[in-house]
């Protein structure tokens, strides 16, 4: 009897087992919940040419297609054109990163510097989940190959829980530093082509000698780095390089000219302590142009013109300086000085 009882229990268990295995066996064949890696996912840009010495972000370079996000990207096989390793781009370097947003209303250099700190990064990175590439300002042509060298080649691994895909043979062909923009340097050779630049806009300035309107060609703007501090000096000189008193530009809002501090205004120059780069980020502030990528300075004066009318004159310059230092921007009135006196 006891034996039968065991057999009973066994057979019921067996039947239950068959049913449960039957049902769970079906579930085994269900697909896993895996993210999608689609074949129509691709990078839309394969050659990257950042200018060294400044932070560069390459966005809009990736089309996600039907893949599931978040994807994870990794740069692999960073190598020279000949296939040899390129450790200079994979080693970590101290770079300056933002921790709080720069808004343009900071009251001191210390306040600005408190918003940045130093972190170690590889000089050329991919954003881990976005596929965007970025080159840090710490990359210098002294140790990174620049054009006309053919540069570097690398591959990108893209993965998510659905699998991985490799995108091969991206080209990284950096350009040499251009410390300031607009630049006088040739992008590929890095050689200077001009001594200076034109100003962005010249409005209603007439020459002291000829009474003719001055144009951009009559005023050359020269950038000079004279030291390793962090200052910015504006100078105006006549055709013979004699200084013109900045106070002549009597309408100029000197305190709002650049986002600088400790203004030092003499009859030869105006000097500010500034945080570099100028502008600090691509963001429109009171000190930049509308797109925010360049500092915007306006020197302005008024005078009584012919016929007893008030004439307002402006000299404008949009510029960017990427390298820290004691910079001088000189406005050289090449042919004749502006007329400041009343008619």
């Amino acid at each position, binding site marked *: 009897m006891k034996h039968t009882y065991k057999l009973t229990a066994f057979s019921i268990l067996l039947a239950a087992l068959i049913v449960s295995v039957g049902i769970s066996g079906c579930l085994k064949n*269900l697909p896993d919940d895996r993210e999608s890696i689609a074949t129509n996912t691709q990078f839309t840009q394969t050659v990257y040419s950042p200018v060294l010495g400044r932070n560069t972000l390459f966005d809009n370079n990736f089309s996600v297609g039907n893949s599931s996000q978040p994807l994870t990207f990794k740069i692999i096989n960073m190598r020279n054109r000949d296939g040899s390793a390129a450790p200079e781009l994979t080693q970590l370097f101290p770079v300056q990163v933002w921790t709080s947003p720069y808004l343009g209303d900071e009251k001191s250099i210390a306040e600005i510097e408190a918003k940045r700190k130093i972190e170690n990064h590889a000089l050329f990175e991919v954003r881990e989940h976005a596929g965007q590439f970025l080159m840090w300002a710490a990359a210098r042509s002294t140790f990174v190959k620049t054009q006309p060298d053919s540069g570097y080649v690398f591959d990108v691994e893209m993965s998510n829980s659905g699998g991985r895909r490799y995108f091969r043979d991206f080209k990284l062909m950096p350009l040499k530093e251009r410390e300031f923009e607009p630049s006088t340097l040739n992008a590929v050779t890095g050689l200077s082509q001009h001594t200076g630049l034109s100003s962005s806009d010249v409005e209603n300035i007439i020459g002291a000698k000829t009474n003719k309107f001055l144009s951009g060609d009559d005023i050359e703007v020269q950038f000079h780095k004279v030291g390793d501090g962090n200052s910015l000096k504006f100078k105006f000189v006549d055709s013979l390089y004699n200084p013109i008193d900045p106070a002549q530009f009597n309408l100029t809002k000197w305190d709002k000219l650049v986002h600088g501090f400790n203004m030092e205004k003499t009859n030869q120059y105006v000097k500010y302590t500034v945080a570099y780069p100028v502008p600090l980020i691509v963001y429109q502030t009171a000190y930049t142009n509308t797109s925010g990528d360049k500092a915007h300075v306006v020197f302005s004066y008024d005078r009584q013109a012919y016929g007893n009318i008030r004439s307002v004159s402006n000299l404008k310059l949009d510029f960017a300086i990427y390298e820290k230092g004691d910079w001088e921007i000189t406005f050289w009135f090449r042919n004749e000085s502006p007329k400041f006196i009343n008619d």
Partner: protein
Amino acid sequence: MRYSAILFSLIALLSFCHPAGAQQKKITVSGTVIDAKEKKPLPGVLVRSGKPSIVLGQTDIKGNFTVKADDDAELTFNFIGFKSITRKVTGPVMNIVMAEEVNALKETVIIGYSKKTKEVSTGSSVVITAKDIQDAPVANVLELIQGKVAGLNIQNNNGTPGMAGSINIRGISNVNVSGSGFLTPTSPLFVVDGFPVDDNSNYSYGFDQASPGLSPISLIPTEDIQSIEILKDAQATSLYGSRGAYGVILITTKRGNSKVPIIKYTANFTLAQPPALRKVIGGKGERLMRIDEILQNDTNYYHALNTINSTPFLSDSLNAYYNNSTNWQAKYFRSTFNQTHNVEISGGENKFNYKVNTGYFSQKGIVENTDFTRYNLNMNTLYQPNDRFKLSAAINNQLAYNSTGGGNSLTQTGVASSGASSSLLPAPSLFTASSGLLNTLSTQNDNKTVNITANLDLDVLIFKGLRATNSFSFNYFSQGTEKLTPAALNGDFNQLYNYFDRKNTLYNRTGLAYDKSFANKHNFRLNVFGELNSTNFRADVIQQSGTPNDQILGPLGYDWSKSLGGTLNNLSDLKTASLAAAFSYNYKQIYVLDLSYRMDGSSTNGPDAGYSKNPSVGVRWNFNKEKFMQSFNWLDYSSLRFSYGKNIVPTGSVYDVYGRYVAGGNYNQDPTVNLDYGVIPNTGLTPTTTTQLNGGFDAGFLNGKFSVTMDAYYKQVDNMLRMKDIANINAFSQVSTNEMSVVNYGYELTLTARPLPTDSKLSWQLSVNAAFNKDVMVHLPDNVSQLLVVDPTTGQNILYRLGRNSLSNVLLNTKGVYSSNSAVPVDPLTGLRYRTGGLVYTYFKQGDPAWTDVNGDYVLDANDYVAVGNSQPLVTGGFTSSMQYGPFSLSINGSFTAIRDVLNNDLASRFQSFANPTAQTGLVPLEAYNYWKTSGNNATYPNPYDYTRAGKVSPFRYDQTLFQEDGSYLKINQVTFFYNFKKAMIKRWNISSARIYVTAYNVHTFSNYSGANPENVTDLGRDISGGYPTPRSYTLGLQVQF
């Protein structure tokens, strides 16, 4: 498979008849049959005797019987729902006490058009009797089944009078989304008295088409229903093959079974109340709030002043037009008083019986100008002169009128938009601009639905064991709509819309059934039948605008440019033919085997797809009947079941298969006929196929005290239809294909207990059921691994991804609210704050929602959506408790849904109404919500008052997890208290029984959900503000039987 069916039929045909029995001496026996529990006489109890048993007679209305029987015969007393009693004839007087049957295995079930006891059925099915669905007057009986069947997920999410909620058996069977977030309905097939009724066609959602949208099931009066049986697995539904893939619900109406005619009158008086309306800010409070909002948040003070002063609605507070405090919601919603009356006359006995049910049902909607009225006259009769021949016929006439006001059968957008009008506006009249309300109130919408069904059943016994049956039915279903939008509401041109459709269904089933039993051990049954179905449907519309005035609506055709109409392009003519065979075998009712095979052809099958072939197998082992189990006398029954089967539902239309020709322009003065380049014909189109595996366990303990039913299933839905865009080199732009598959698997558990001892005066029955269902997407068109379904209106997209729940929401993940500006993340490279995407972008700031930057590029854009949430409930179930003490009874039932994500679009749109302080919309008080007020606040909701952010960041967008909430709920559906009058008291009025009852319906919903009602959401779990709320109702009812 085919050969085995033929083989079994041959075996069956080789059998012979039994010889007739010998004559014996007869005596007259009389007596009374009494119900053991209620101590009342039982009318209509059949008295049988002999082998095979012959009906000798039945009890009359007082429970008395008089029969002539052999002096040594055994009399068997049968009554549905009671244990059969067999007594030897002891003398001329026999008094019998019958007890209620509590063994679930003895319940009769109908599977594949033939009756069996549950003991020998291998499928999974549940029976609901009339007792479970009485005492609450609702238009659609399925409302009352909610929470009573494990695995049947009913969400009463539509309170429009006469409409059905959503019904799914064992998870979803279609993942196609139509319009703005409405799931394609997959209601099960209804079989009413043996004749299939389709609830999934255009009437279920009168949404795409302007039809009244009534469900045919709403036309069946609850009082006329004898039982409802829900067939869940493929074995049970296999013989309803041609449309049974979504499950089958059998509805059986009442029949007469009393020698003395019974007149039963039921009346209900119901008060229906709208649910709690949302609070709004009214009058001066609203104006000041708007002005304050502008002053606090505009870009500068002077601009703010200008905004206020240039908006007379805000500044001109002395203007009578703007100086009001109107309660708009009260204009829309009302409490209504409704009544229903139903008279049923039935009588007859086995040889001839009849029933006439006539009823009036009226439900005025809680939204003004909506209602539903039903008149019905249902008749059936059965004539069975002898055991060899049975004829039954039925004619059911149902007429329904309904009005959906200015909305449609699903939504009332007028209520949503104008119900949320500014309280400063004056009360509605034709001279004020609030046309939304007038649209609801003064749109004349008259809908008429006529449903006429005629059934004829023939059943002939050819020789012992072999029966031939034929069932024929014709159904005419016609709907008409007349909708007049008065001129004042439609730019001085009134609009008249006239819709008429008709659907004719012809259905015939012819079958042969053979029963054979060897030595009472081996029982065979073979059933072969063929089914033919022809349905045609046609809808016509006339649309006129600018008739002479709102009263004179003709003449037709006065201006051809404004007189539109014709036949709609949903014209259909469907024909299906099926051939099926079923074989059942059981050995001493211990081992049961069911086999069936069915072939279906449909005119919407592509010519290359051919007939679909659907086999099914079921086995059952009633192991308590085994010898070794006999010693366990605490076990009433126990069995294991297993079934496998396939089933189909035709999908698509004949146009998807063969393409469509359209009338073209003239060529050489001759009209041309062109191909429609919209959809390329797909001649391989097949029906949707469901393959299901089911394992089950049933057991009962301690003489019916406890019983348990467990089921585990795996249901695979293949060949789901989906329209697919194709490359433009094909000339055509789309194709319909059967390329999607979904798997549902789950577990169902039902527990029933009668915890009190049988001799207790208080009887209590408690039943709890729960079902767990998980759905998984397993195949997508073109073998892709994911697809995104875009919802252009709300942005709440849906993701289909292999291996995942089939309908995932795709939303921005709201982590919280930026408490201060420094909390906004900064791109370390560019020094820029997290911002929105696009050419013109906005940086996030304090008070804005903190959305996860999924791809880490410090830009919020389409890359930052995450797949979260499941709009389909994981767990559903319910409970029923009924207590009886003497003549008093109390029954409570409830239902629950758990682990379901609901998108609270209603709340989102309330917050959004703050986005434009100069718009004339209603404002709701926000005190209840933890929103961001000042820097440093740790809030749940972003700052609603800073309206300048609305267009830039849109903090209250629908597509974010902030509004995705847990939609679990527990609802008390119904509480009924009733009293049965004592017989002695009512006898003097010639009343045989009377009961009076009070019912509260839709009593209370317990939920953590922050919105109004977690159930009143669309199938995709979206709480849209335009949904029709479900009323709470209180009913006083009376049931009298003469």
